[in-house]
């Protein structure tokens, strides 16, 4: 585009056409925003003709998960409760990407509660590698659209692994920044002490470009961190010499999918060949992390979703009494109801679950801090399995287990990066790396080195060619 060989409008038309064509197969969008996308593209083309200085992403189309507010667009959180809600404002992250044509709002698990994208009120999302399998969740639409070539990049959100697990299932690059790095103003909250906006891209290079634009302090988010944002593209160096990588022994020894643990160990060998110092470390608190997460996330969700009572916005059940209106307006799906029950019980007079979860969180976070005094990065699977069949009925606990390797980063507010690192039965395998808080630079360096020396991220699903 900078050389004048392609316009933003042409590029946007290409992605819109592909998105519309594949929507019946993938169901990656809840809504497509053709007019909005073309208006932005046309504006960018006009600025470029005037030789105005533009960001490297100007004119590059994107998809945005449907729990992130976009002015004038439906923002449904994949729920019937918000089916008719049109946001009156843009989330800060969307404002910062105002020069990126919005292709549409990506499908997801209802209110980001799930690891399958099966709980959407707008139908399940299919994995582009095998349409009979889940793309993971909750950012399943965001991951599937990037994998299928329907969007060059997308925004997702990660509360317990909701960017990294779908990135792993769909063979794309998923980046969860540190807690506080990207403003959540305009993100409809699930669990505010864990929620983080991040990116789904085809490469670490693309992730660096998007992160550069969306990171930074914002007074509109009380948890936003006053941290300088480094030049992320300058971190893209093909060199891990001297970097200390820790392999969590308990996790790799107990991973239920041997192809996943083997692929991660193979990646560790390649990092060692590239000059990294790889060692085994102990990271024993996986069950405890999941338990703490369940207590904290459900309690915060019960509080966050109390606002959906039919009063100020969203669906209202018509009734002559206030109490019936409240109750009748809360038309959530089964998974949301289950988590709200658990969370309400945790916060109620018969239980001290939230406090117990937060105590455990402190302990686990301290343990991770100690690990990072020994190593620069942790290398582990992004998820315990590869993509599972859509019709596979997992009980709720088994479904929550999908996030067992990703949750520690949310509990401790750490940045983490999921990358394709292999294939099993024709489906992608994902690994992840975690770094100390605000050390996105180290993740980008290691991730870039990995993608300079492997081609897993270049492979495309054949089903949607």
């Amino acid at each position, binding site marked *: 585009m900078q050389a004048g060989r392609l316009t933003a409008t042409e590029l946007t038309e290409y992605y819109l056409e592909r998105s519309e064509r594949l929507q019946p197969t993938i169901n990656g969008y809840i809504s497509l925003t053709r007019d909005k996308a073309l208006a932005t593209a046309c504006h960018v083309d006009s600025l470029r003709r005037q030789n105005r200085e533009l960001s490297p992403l100007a004119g590059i189309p994107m998809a945005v998960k449907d729990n992130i507010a976009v002015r004038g667009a439906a923002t449904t959180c994949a729920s019937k409760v918000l089916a008719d*809600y049109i946001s*009156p*404002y843009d989330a800060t992250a969307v404002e910062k990407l105002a020069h990126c044509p919005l292709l549409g709002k990506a499908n997801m698990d209802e209110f980001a509660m799930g690891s399958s994208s099966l709980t959407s009120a707008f139908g399940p999302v299919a994995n582009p590698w095998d349409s009979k399998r889940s793309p993971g969740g909750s950012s399943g639409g965001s991951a599937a659209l990037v994998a299928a070539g329907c969007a060059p990049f997308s925004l997702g959100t990660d509360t317990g692994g909701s960017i990294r697990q779908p990135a792993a299932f769909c063979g794309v690059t998923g980046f969860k920044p540190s*807690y506080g790095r990207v403003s959540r103003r305009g993100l409809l909250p699930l669990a505010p*002490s864990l929620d983080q906006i991040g990116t789904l891209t085809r490469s670490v290079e693309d992730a660096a470009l998007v992160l550069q634009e969306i990171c930074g302090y914002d*007074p*509109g988010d*009380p*948890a*936003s*961190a*006053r941290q300088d944002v480094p030049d992320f593209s300058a971190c893209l160096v093909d060199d891990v010499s001297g970097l200390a990588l820790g392999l969590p022994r308990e996790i790799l020894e107990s991973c239920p999918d041997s192809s996943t643990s083997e692929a991660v160990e193979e990646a560790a060998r390649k990092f060692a060949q590239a000059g990294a110092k790889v060692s085994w470390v102990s990271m024993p608190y996986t*069950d*405890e992390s999941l*338990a703490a997460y*369940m*207590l904290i996330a459900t309690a915060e969700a*019960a509080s966050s979703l*109390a606002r959906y*009572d*039919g*009063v*100020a*916005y*969203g*669906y*209202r059940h018509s*009734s*002559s*009494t*206030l109490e*019936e*209106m409240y*109750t009748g307006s*809360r038309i959530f799906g089964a998974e949301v*109801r*289950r988590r*709200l*029950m*658990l*969370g*309400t*019980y945790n916060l*109620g007079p*018969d*239980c001290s*679950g*939230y406090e*117990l*979860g*937060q*105590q*455990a*969180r*402190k*302990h686990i976070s*301290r343990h991770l801090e100690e690990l990072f005094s020994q190593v620069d990065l942790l290398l582990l699977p992004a998820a315990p399995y590869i993509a599972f069949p859509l019709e596979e009925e997992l009980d*709720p*606990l088994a479904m929550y287990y999908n996030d067992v390797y990703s949750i520690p980063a949310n509990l401790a*507010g750490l940045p983490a990066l999921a990358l394709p690192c292999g294939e099993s039965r024709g489906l992608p395998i994902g690994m992840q790396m975690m770094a100390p808080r605000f050390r996105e630079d180290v993740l980008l360096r290691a991730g870039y080195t990995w993608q300079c020396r492997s081609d897993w991220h270049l492979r495309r699903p054949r089903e949607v060619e």
Partner: protein
Amino acid sequence: MKITPEQVKKTAAMAKLPLADDELAEMAGQLQEFLDYVKVLKKLPSGTGSPLQAFGAPGPAGQGEACLSQEEVLALAPDSSQGMVRVPRVIADE
């Protein structure tokens, strides 16, 4: 601890969730399963300091700038009247 049907019913009422009787029974079993699972945390040593603060003190909230006008807020409401959101009558007739 064994969760009772009364506790499940009370929780559904607090959460304002319209659960039918058969759903309440199913939910009781699932809540019990979760509560049994999280018992694993009892083995961890209890921490020091406030367990409710995740990452130090939160930063200052925004400067209180109004981001939406009254008209914009009311346009989102399912029902409004005279510049206010309208809900079903709260106070019964004498």
